[in-house]
């Protein structure tokens, strides 16, 4: 497929810490303001400054927001990577090179522009340190001219970001102008361009972590404890920002929230459990290694039945792995996290809108089921920029679950913390400070009976464990159901979750264009709801798409539905880069060919 107007991607190669973010955001926002859907993906190293970094802006009139392997425009600013960057570009692509960067021999079917960025910036910015930052804004001017990005929109986007810093704004404006003037004078227009459309009206651009923070804010979070770790830190910091702004009394300075930066992830989850047990809406955010550290307390919370909301922004593991790359490989270990028999409720956001709604819903589920609820996002959703419809204000109050107050206790003869009175596996709890002689109980991770008293009695242990299993069954009808898109006559199903969603949408269109229609189930949570089973039953073959090596979702489905397991086939992607549509198309087509041969 060739690049065409409103369907191409721009790949910008710079050095980490060079301030290219403002430049890239400006380009992305300007395209967005021209009414053409965009997405932005940041491919960055685990480093503060100095290592190579890339930013990809995908312009897609059809609204495809997934990563694409095909780059159509390269902005090569980084001499360290320019040879490889240039070599990766295909026929018909546009290469905008910082004059003097090392380059291989470039075939004649590429459009090459050389711009003396460093020479241009010198007279504009006398300070050498500042120059490094401003030079990026020159390529904004050049690219905008070449690709027909409206300068008025560029200026809007720039002003929105730097409006509060007039000096910086002026200098950056001048740099954009300089780039544009240079391009007008020296460079011929590119073979494909951005054309105005009306497909982004009323849409927002947002990162998933920011969306999750908004969800928590409107979900009524009162306690956040966390330990800094990429790629989850931006969720905690974004939430802290919103809380400071909207939940602290401007007059008295008093806060209706607490944010505690813990000494490690064990303490972070411990504080969440203490706060939740006491009645706060408490959450933590973490990634990879931090999640591993939370394991013991997770088992405790499951067994002692304490609500907790745990956001895991997945990165590549095991161990430190690739801290700044994306993955869906925490699924299996989270589903059963802890020693002993445990199974957990997991929410799987596929969109920034999911991050927002799950940010609220996770609290409701955690308090309703008195158990840890995980939100398994990933770096791709969490830290990249996505276009979305604006979020809706919640139309329901919160659900605080089964809490008995002193008034409730006054009407009852006894209170037993772990007695299943309603037949749904969910007992009632009281909060510390409840002024009634019956209210107190003793929470423990050791064996306990219905009255929360210590016991090692075999029958009682089994009874409690069976009730916990029953509670998990109740959760099946409470968690968000999958979203199913059935195509009439399609016998091939695709099952996906999380950030794979966007690549799957695009892949389905391409497969259909090649004559293979599919039905699609987008899974939103564990435990599996009944819709999952009926979808699997109704399909001849189901491709389970996931971003991990060991086919973890397929393993969970196989455990749950062994009788349907032979229908499942894996589409895997686990190199740390976000999954793209072509990878899915290629694998499905190859497997289908094999399937046809063997049939």
């Amino acid at each position: 497929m060739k690049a065409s107007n409103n369907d191409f991607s721009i790949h910008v190669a710079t050095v980490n810490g060079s301030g290219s973010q403002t430049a890239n955001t400006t380009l992305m926002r300007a395209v967005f303001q021209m009414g053409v859907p965009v997405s932005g993906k940041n491919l960055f190293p685990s480093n503060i400054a100095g290592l190579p970094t890339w930013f990809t802006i995908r312009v897609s009139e059809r609204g495809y927001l997934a990563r694409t392997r095909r780059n159509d425009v390269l902005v090569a600013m980084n001499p360290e990577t320019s040879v490889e960057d240039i070599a990766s570009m295909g026929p018909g692509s546009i290469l905008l090179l910082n004059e003097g960067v090392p380059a291989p021999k470039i075939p004649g079917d590429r459009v090459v522009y050389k711009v003396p960025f460093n020479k241009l910036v010198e007279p504009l910015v006398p300070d050498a340190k500042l120059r490094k930052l401003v030079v990026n804004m020159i390529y904004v001017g050049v690219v905008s001219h070449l690709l027909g990005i409206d300068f008025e929109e560029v200026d809007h986007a720039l002003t929105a970001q730097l409006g509060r810093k007039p000096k910086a704004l002026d200098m950056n404006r001048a740099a954009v102008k300089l780039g544009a003037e240079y391009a007008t004078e020296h460079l011929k227009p590119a073979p494909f361009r951005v054309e105005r459309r009306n497909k982004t009206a009323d849409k927002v651009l947002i990162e998933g972590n920011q969306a999750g923070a908004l969800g928590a804010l409107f979900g009524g979070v009162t306690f956040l404890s966390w330990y800094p770790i990429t790629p989850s830190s931006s969720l905690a910091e974004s939430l802290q920002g919103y809380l400071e702004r909207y939940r602290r009394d401007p007059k008295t300075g008093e806060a209706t929230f607490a944010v505690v930066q813990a000494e490690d992830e064990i303490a972070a989850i411990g504080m969440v459990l203490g706060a939740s047990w006491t009645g706060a809406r408490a959450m933590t955010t973490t990634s990879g290694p931090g999640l591993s550290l939370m394991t013991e307390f997770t088992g405790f919370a499951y067994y002692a039945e304490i609500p907790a909301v745990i956001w895991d922004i997945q990165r590549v593991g095991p161990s430190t792995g690739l801290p700044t790359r994306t993955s869906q490989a925490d699924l299996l270990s989270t589903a059963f996290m802890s020693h002993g028999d445990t199974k957990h409720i997991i929410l799987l956001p596929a969109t920034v809108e999911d991050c927002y709604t799950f940010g609220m819903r996770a609290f409701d589920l955690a308090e309703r089921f008195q158990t840890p609820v995980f939100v398994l996002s990933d770096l791709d959703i969490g830290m990249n920029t996505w276009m979305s419809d604006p979020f809706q204000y919640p139309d329901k109050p919160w659900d605080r679950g089964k809490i008995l107050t002193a008034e409730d206790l006054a009407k009852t003869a006894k209170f037993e913390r772990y007695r299943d009175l309603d037949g749904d596996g969910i007992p009632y709890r009281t909060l510390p400070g409840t002024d009634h002689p019956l209210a107190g109980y003793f929470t423990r991770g050791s064996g306990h009976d219905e009255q929360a008293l210590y016991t090692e009695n075999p029958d009682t242990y089994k009874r409690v464990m069976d009730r916990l299993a029953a509670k998990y069954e109740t959760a099946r009808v409470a968690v968000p159901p999958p979203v199913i898109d059935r195509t009439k006559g399609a016998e091939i199903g695709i099952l996906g979750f999380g950030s794979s969603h966007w690549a799957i949408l695009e892949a389905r269109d391409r497969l259909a264009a090649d004559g293979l229609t599919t039905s699609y189930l987008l899974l939103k949570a564990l435990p599996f709801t009944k819709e999952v089973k009926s979808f699997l039953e109704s399909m001849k073959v189901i491709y389970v798409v996931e971003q991990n090596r060991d086919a973890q979702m397929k393993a969970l489905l196989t455990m749950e539905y062994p009788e349907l397991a032979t229908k499942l086939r894996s589409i895997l992607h686990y190199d740390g880069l976000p999954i793209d549509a072509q990878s899915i198309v290629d694998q499905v087509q190859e497997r289908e060919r094999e399937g046809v041969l063997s049939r």
Partner: protein
Amino acid sequence: MTPEKRAPEQSANGNKNRIGLTVADYRGAKSTLCPGCGHDAITGSIIQAAFEAGIEPHRVAKLSGIGCSSKTPAYFLSRSHGFNAVHGRMPSIATGVSVANRSLTLLGVSGDGDTASIGLGQFLHLVRRNVPLLYIVENNGVYGLTKGQFSATADVGSKAKSGRVNELMPIDVCALAIELGCGFVARSFSGDPKQLRPILKAALSHRGTAVVDVISPCVTFNNHEGSTKSYLNVKEHDAPLHDIFFIPRYENIEVDYAPGESREVTLHDGSRITLKKLGEDYDPGDALRALETIHHGRQEDKFVTGLLYVDPDKEPFEQDLKLVETPLASLPLEKVRPPKEVLDEVMSGLMTGKA
């Protein structure tokens, strides 16, 4: 009237305290520890201290980690909520509880293994944050539940039941707490309730983390000859700094001592601690002196007990967080869900990209 002759705060109602409860209302389940365990004596002191202080049981959260000591919250204040956490992690639970409901009184019980080994990190950070909590370390220098391994507070030269001698430097939780600015640090002995009870009552009145390290001999694994934390050895080497008396805020008792014979510390809630001089004049407001005293005590094989350090005015954690007066746990939805206009404002910012 001197405090030691004064009847406890139960005088008016016979065996009832100022809120009308009897001592039985502060008891808990029957202990399952070894008969004669120092921890049970501490439990007795906790019950008596809470009763005498007239604490409302429903306002107390009892917290612990794992180990013999951590079982004890089940043996007192059965009307209170209790939280027996995982090993070494009671401080993080306490932090969450305290922040979620600042009106609760937190009473934590830990052991030397739970605090000085697996939980040392969390313990130090708790102290550093000054989370309001009475943190009792029931310190016997040995792992009881796992049958007699040394803990990190075992003294150099102390002999285990197996015959092994500890050569490693003990971790002194009081010295660490003082170093991190803890506003209330005391050491006592389970066998000296006369000293321990006023310390506990004072610690419960302190606004911030109060660390009370109580030497509590293990009758089963660490009470033999050669053990420094046997009953006999602790009794012989107990070196109290002063006699301690506690006068609660709601009592107006004047204590008459000759000038220079005693010191008085007023806590934030108006209650007072009177320290009657025993040997030399000890100033518990001097952190360096306290550390020096602990070091000298160790060199001389003495257990220096009493109120080692106190700073009643240190800012507690909830003040650092600038929390509203209402406990976070009781805030209604309208206080914690911003109105629709806020979402509209944020969404419109995301449409235009305005920072």
